């Protein structure tokens, strides 16, 4: 009996250790800063999503829920994952419906022109982000070769190799407030080589049988689960054969009386500028996404009775997301602002930011009027003594004189800011800016006027610049 109890206890300890290891090693979307859209879904209050968008990267680049929230108070969510194929979309709709009761589900049809997963990481992203359930097993059955299914279902054979890439958020859980609404907000611009012939192409092609079956399955699901189904096609480069299929889909959906918005039609979105609104040939950037989202927002507002949830505490995560997006969009504008007065204006209205202004080295010899530049900032202190000025939320909070060697340390959310004057030993006349985040020096050491702006919402330094 004693031996059986001992064996039982051993198995219990072993299981405990295994569960601990599993939690650390389990699949997380490391490419998405540990914030997979599926995790965002699970972390969202039940029955708060009114509109859900599904699809691949086309969706998270083109649809910005923050715009729908700020404009209409629509609680929208991008349940989009990279490479999300048709089966993944179908089962992700079912996954959404487990905790949410959206009035409208908008499905992107980018998945009609590819099959399976070209990138292995996308297969993991689509299969493993979802919690293990019957729905997940059915998705795996539909997507993974038979000999690999058990690895995906048990997960451990795949995730155990993650020991080489463990990071902070493998050990602690990301704060729920940092979870967005699924949009990626890409800022880069590339002019894609669009096939304009395809955009103008009007001939009706043929919908392949498996794709037609999927469309019918989606429509049936919408009827069974009683949600309004909308299909759309985010802008991307396609050829005329693919366009022929989309034209056939449009005809089919018209017959089925399912709304379909095809952004790849001539004249559909006249404001869309191919020179500035694309991240690459397959994705719109934040500027193109804004246009697409506004269009869809108008469509939703006109056709469905969607409640304005702004101000409702239950929907706070949409407020946080909108705030995050505002900072995200503003950050590059601040970093590229060349006009000093406009820059000062940003600093003085820098809600959610910490600013360090540093006057170092032989700033008296500068060809610029550095003292004069400091005046509009309305900060206290003796400019001629140099040193550091620290501001938070646009307000001046402290001044460290140039001859004060005591470090200033401040907890700024997830990070620690340290500001200190440092004398370089081999040349005592040189004073250098020393600004550190989590004990790591940021930027380079300069003389003259250095300005560093840290965004507490984005958890990162969004600008560091120097004037001499």
């Amino acid at each position: 009996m004693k031996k059986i109890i001992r064996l039982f206890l051993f198995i219990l300890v072993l299981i405990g250790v295994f569960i601990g290891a599993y939690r650390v090693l389990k699949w997380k979307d490391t490419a998405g800063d540990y914030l997979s859209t599926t995790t965002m879904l699970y972390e969202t209050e039940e029955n708060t999503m009114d509109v859900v968008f599904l699809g691949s990267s086309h969706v998270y680049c083109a649809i910005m829920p923050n715009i729908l929230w700020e404009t209409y108070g629509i609680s929208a969510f991008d349940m989009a994952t990279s490479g999300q194929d048709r089966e993944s979309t179908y089962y992700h709709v079912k996954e959404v419906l487990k905790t949410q009761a959206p009035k409208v589900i908008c499905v992107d049809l980018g998945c009609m022109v590819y099959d399976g997963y070209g990138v292995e990481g996308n297969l993991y992203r689509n299969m493993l982000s979802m919690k293990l359930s019957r729905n997940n097993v059915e998705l795996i059955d539909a997507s993974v070769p038979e000999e690999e299914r058990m690895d995906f279902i048990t997960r451990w054979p795949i995730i155990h190799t993650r020991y080489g890439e463990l990071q902070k958020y493998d050990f602690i859980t990301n704060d729920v407030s940092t979870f967005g609404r699924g949009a990626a907000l890409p800022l880069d611009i590339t002019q894609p080589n669009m096939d304009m012939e395809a955009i103008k192409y009007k001939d009706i092609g043929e919908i392949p049988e498996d794709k037609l079956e999927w469309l019918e399955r989606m429509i049936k699901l919408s009827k069974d689960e009683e949600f309004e189904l909308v299909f759309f096609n985010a802008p991307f480069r396609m050829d005329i054969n693919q366009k022929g299929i989309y034209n056939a889909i449009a005809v089919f959906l018209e017959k089925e009386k399912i709304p379909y918005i095809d952004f790849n039609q001539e004249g559909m979105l006249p404001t869309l500028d191919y020179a500035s609104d694309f991240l690459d040939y397959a994705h719109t950037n934040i500027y193109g996404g804004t246009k697409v989202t506004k269009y869809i927002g108008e469509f939703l507002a006109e056709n469905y009775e969607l409640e304005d949830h702004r101000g409702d505490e239950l929907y706070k995560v949409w407020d946080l997301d909108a705030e995050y997006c505002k900072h995200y969009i503003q950050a590059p504008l601040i970093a590229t602002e060349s006009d000093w007065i406009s820059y000062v204006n940003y600093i003085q209205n820098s809600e959610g930011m910490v600013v360090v202004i540093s006057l170092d080295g032989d700033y008296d010899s500068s060809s610029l009027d550095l003292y004069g530049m400091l005046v509009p900032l309305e900060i206290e202190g003796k400019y001629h003594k140099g040193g550091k000025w620290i501001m938070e939320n646009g307000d001046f909070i402290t001044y460290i004189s140039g001859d004060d060697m005591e470090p200033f340390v401040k907890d700024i959310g997830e990070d620690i800011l340290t500001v200190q004057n440092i004398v370089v030993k081999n040349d005592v006349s040189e004073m250098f800016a020393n600004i550190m985040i989590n004990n790591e020096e940021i930027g380079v050491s300069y003389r003259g006027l250095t300005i560093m702006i840290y965004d507490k919402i984005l958890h990162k330094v969004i600008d560091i610049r120097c004037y001499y």
Partner: protein
Amino acid sequence: MLFNSLDFLIFFPIVVFVYFIVPKKIRYLWLLGASYYFYMSWNAKYAILIAISTIITWLSGMLIGRIKKTGWKKTIVAASLLSNLGILFFFKYFDFAITSLNEVLSRFDFQIIDRKFDVLLPVGISFYTFQALSYTLDVYRGEIEEEKNFLKYALFVSFFPQLVAGPIERSKNLVSQIKKIETINVWNYERIINGLIMMAWGLFQKMVIADRMAIFVNEVFDHAYQYGTIELILAAVGFAIQIYCDFAGYSTIAIGAARVMGFDLMENFNTPYFATSIGDFWHRWHISLSSWFRDYVYISLGGNRCSKVRKYVNVFITFLVSGLWHGASWTFVIWGALHGFYQIIGLLLKPIRQKITKIFHVNTNAFSFEFGQILITFSLTTFAWIFFRAESLKAAITYIKQMVTHWNPWVLFDKSMYAIALNETECKVLLAAVCFLLIVDLLKRVKNTNLSDFLIQQNLWFRWAVVIALLMSILIYGIYGIQFDSTKFIYFDF
């Protein structure tokens, strides 16, 4: 069905559980069925071969046991040897023989023989053939009585833990245990735990060390021309560790699995890289095979009860045959020949070595002396492993040539080693695992106890900590899963 597969993880507990609860009298039938299922999971057709080998050797045993005349007995032994070795030759060496013959013929402008036998080598054929033959020879020598129960004998030949990669059990040991299978106390807690720890240790050797080391070794051996002295030396040493962990790992799992079921299989590896001479190495490496060759080949050739020259010839022949047993390729023949050569040179130089130690007053009892012997032996065996691992003789020569001509010690310092096949984390995992292996082998060498026996004697917290660490290491650091095309145990092909 590999030991490190999900299939075996399901198969083994089921077999053991049923074996524990079935009536004692049919235990052997259950194990026989399980063993054939295990073997047939590779290729069902090849079960016919093992059945033929079993029938021939069982019948020969029965006949030898009943016939009085020595002449007839000899004929039966010869028939058993010829038929079994004939099957082995046909499946393993036929293509090699034809290819080698064609090479000779083509040199003399004769027409080559265009007759290839293109089939997969039946898994473990060399192991069970030798095991079955040992039975015929032991019955002939009167060392054991013939086994009258055919099915029990069939279990001896096909006992699944050691069926495909040994240890090559002697009939004296295993047949007698199978005979008494009804008397085994299956519910022996200590024995079961001991066996399970052995299996875990074997899996650690295979999955954490051997399969990880294989990634580095394969890259360097496959592209030897790209690398310099240091990488090539490290890969050769790496292969020495890989093949040890692969093979000893398999043997340890086999012994552990058998122990769980109440069977004691013979020890197959005893810290071979702590050997102080090549002779000593062969007393520690693949003990079941080397003792088989000693008992049935070397002694049959006359052993050392003959002239010195004849003894050396016997040694050389035994090692040549041993090399050929490992594979149908000239690289294995050279590997065997090298070991034979090492042995003979060692014996020839023995008086000179003794004289030198006397002249220079070398303290042969000092640790440094023994350590030097271990280093030299390890270097010699590692050098021979290059031939064993190389794809061809030409590749082995290229490897050695590159190793002695491209001196590049800086790669040890510029981190370029991490770019070869294993990144820094993987190298650290491998290094830590090899250090653990060294500790376990030192334990064996110094305290003469294996890991499982040592742990059983320790306090509970320590035992649990080590076993849990071992199991978690296999689960986390083991090479398996989608990203990895599991390298099967190297010795399956022998």
